């Protein structure tokens, strides 16, 4: 075949990443009995839903979506979650951290911005156990954080839901090993190889609508150690702090207690892409949960965090 002929058989990086993710989704459907897609309402899990639609088209997504509701979510994100689940015709399961706390299975953190980030792992593992899921599909990416850079597509969890990063199964070619013992499960990350930019470009290419808080808007925020936290019932102002109105948007969606906003006028996906292209800080740089220690993410993941 001549190079000229071959030229038309090139696939863009987005198409290659998409094809890889679809392949993973189909492997999950085939290798596991009861998978679930962990849906947070963030851009990564929104991409996951689109990829799952493509993987099984024209059939519906053959597994439910599950959201672990910390109770500290942005209301815009909850609204979006509900309408998306309806649109794709998927069953939506919600498990709430508040319930876990009320049942005495976890304790609320103390402090001026108590985070429920760590204890949501308990709710998640409870949900997985209660409903008997054997594969939980998530939107984590390897470029997000250094512990995640070591993560497999098919990531084994023992009967306690724990990750053993030093003893992972090697993953070669396109051969994924989802074998497990009773009571164990897998976390599966179809967009492992995507970067933040890839996600945004994919959203642009696919014209996927997003929750409004990803775009520029006015909001009252407090500047805490360089992080702009949104005004909410979950935040207590410290001495000398005050709310001020700023034009901001979110690069990543987590809890209101630990997700910092960025000052931005970016109003369209194209603006955001421009902004991401010139960004000098990684997206998780705005996440207080990662800053607690150098191995914060790794430690949470070992405990069963997503």
């Amino acid at each position, binding site marked *: 075949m001549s190079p000229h002929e071959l030229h038309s058989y090139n696939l863009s990086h987005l198409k290659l990443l998409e094809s890889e993710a679809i392949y993973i989704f189909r492997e999950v459907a085939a290798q596991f009995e009861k998978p679930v897609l962990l849906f947070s309402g963030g851009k990564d899990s929104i991409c996951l839903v689109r990829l799952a639609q493509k*993987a*099984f088209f024209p059939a519906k997504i053959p597994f439910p979506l599950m959201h672990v509701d910390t109770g500290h979510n942005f209301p815009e994100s909850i609204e979006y979650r509900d309408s998306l689940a309806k649109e794709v015709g998927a069953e939506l399961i919600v498990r709430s951290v508040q319930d876990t706390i009320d049942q005495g299975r976890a304790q609320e953190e103390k402090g001026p911005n108590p985070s429920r980030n760590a204890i949501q792992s308990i709710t998640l593992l409870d949900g997985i156990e209660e409903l008997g899921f054997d594969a939980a599909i998530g939107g984590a990416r390897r470029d997000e954080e250094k*512990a995640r*850079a070591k993560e497999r597509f098919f990531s084994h969890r023992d009967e306690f839901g724990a990750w053993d990063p030093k003893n992972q199964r090697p993953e070669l070619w396109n051969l994924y090993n989802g074998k*497990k013992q009773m009571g164990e499960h897998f976390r599966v990350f179809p967009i492992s190889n995507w970067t933040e930019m890839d996600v945004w470009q994919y959203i642009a290419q696919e014209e996927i609508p997003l929750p409004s808080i990803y775009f520029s808007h006015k909001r009252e925020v407090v500047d805490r150690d360089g992080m702009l936290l949104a005004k909410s019932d979950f935040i207590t102002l410290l001495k000398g702090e005050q709310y001020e109105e700023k034009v901001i948007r979110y690069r990543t969606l987590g809890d209101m207690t630990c997700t910092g906003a960025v000052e931005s006028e970016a109003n369209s996906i194209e603006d955001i892409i421009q902004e991401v292209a*010139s960004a*000098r800080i990684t997206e998780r740089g705005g996440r207080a949960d990662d800053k607690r220690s150098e191995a914060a993410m*790794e430690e949470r993941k070992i405990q069963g965090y997503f």
Partner: protein
Amino acid sequence: MTNVRKRQWKKEKYKDTFRMDQEFSKNYLDMDLLRFTTAGSVDDGKSTLIGRLMYDSKSIFEDQMEAIEESSKRRGDENLNLALLTDGLKAEREQGITIDVAYRYFATPRRKFIIADTPGHIQYTRNMVTGASTANLAIILVDARNGVIEQTCRHAFIASLLRIKHLVVCVNKMDLVDFQEEPFLKIQEEFAAFTSKLDITDIRYIPISALKGDNVVDKSSNMPWYNGATLLYTLENVQIASDRNFIDGRFGVQGVIRPMSDKYHDFRGYSGKVEGGIFRPGDEVMVMPSGLTSKIKSIESFEGQLKEAFPPMSICMTLEDDIDISRGDMICRPNNHPDATQDLDLMVCWLNQSALKPGGKYLIRHSSNEARCVVKGVRYKMDINTLHRLEDDREIGLNDIGRIFLRAAKPLMVDPYKKNRNTGSVILVDEFTNETVAAGMVI
């Protein structure tokens, strides 16, 4: 010496290089993807090279840089320790070693890159094989002062075994040999002599200084005798499209899609990835292992029907006839299909602490297929330093490479690995621990 070399990074640390060009994103929607792996022995500057590529392509962010700086300080490293950027696990940082393959990402306006960064010492064969299995290209680092050493040969052998088509030999630390051509030529000669025994077609040699940046991104003025391309230019321009197999139609069926909805009442599609060849509606196909034939009715996707599908597209195919097809079957061509065979001859790399048990039973995974198998025997073990076949040492343990033969409980549709990486590769899984214990390539 190390300290002086590392300090270079400090000087230009806050040079305004983090910001990406705005043009960048405009060109970003339609880019190529190149996966490469980096191999090198301890202290050959691998971390520095990766750091340099990411740094010069503006892929290291400020907060990452700050975090590295802070941990360097805390650890008592006098200077910035770029290995901290690639060492993701706590144990790795504590022990100052890389345990596992780490994946790194960077992009230039031309291409997006995925680096499989494999550790230099611990578990290294296992990790390099893993990283190499998905790579289009391998960078092999050689210290200009040390020349071609045993490890270099091992790296080259593994790259050829995994059939990485493109090899870039970076002769690093040229600054420490005064940018002289002689050591470079000597390494080139030695490496070429060794690799003449191997099956690698595209080998390029680049003299670099990862630390100072010579010939990494920018052309070096210190080596006027070198007329070739820089490393980044090479990575951006190497042709990889023809590395895929467009000839032999192979489509491993991952699943059957039956919507059973009003709109798609009788729809029955086969999902999978094109692993070889080009498929078009109207094409005659043969389903293996049954040997039944039909024609492609349509190629479906979320965006609508497609005129053709080629590797590595994930698609859904419908056929004219209602024949029995399920996961693990392979859709091929009537006059071009692999044999369905239960007896396999493999080169394996052993990945697990517990050694291969001759006569032992394992699970074998191939494409979308899975079967039980029994290892009938070991033909020889490979001495990967000398390339000798050790016929009287047949114990295959962790990090060993050897040739084995096995029998599967059902027929598998395999191609020789050299013909097709997708349909010529298998993994073995331990039936009791469920661990992936071996990577195999069909002879």
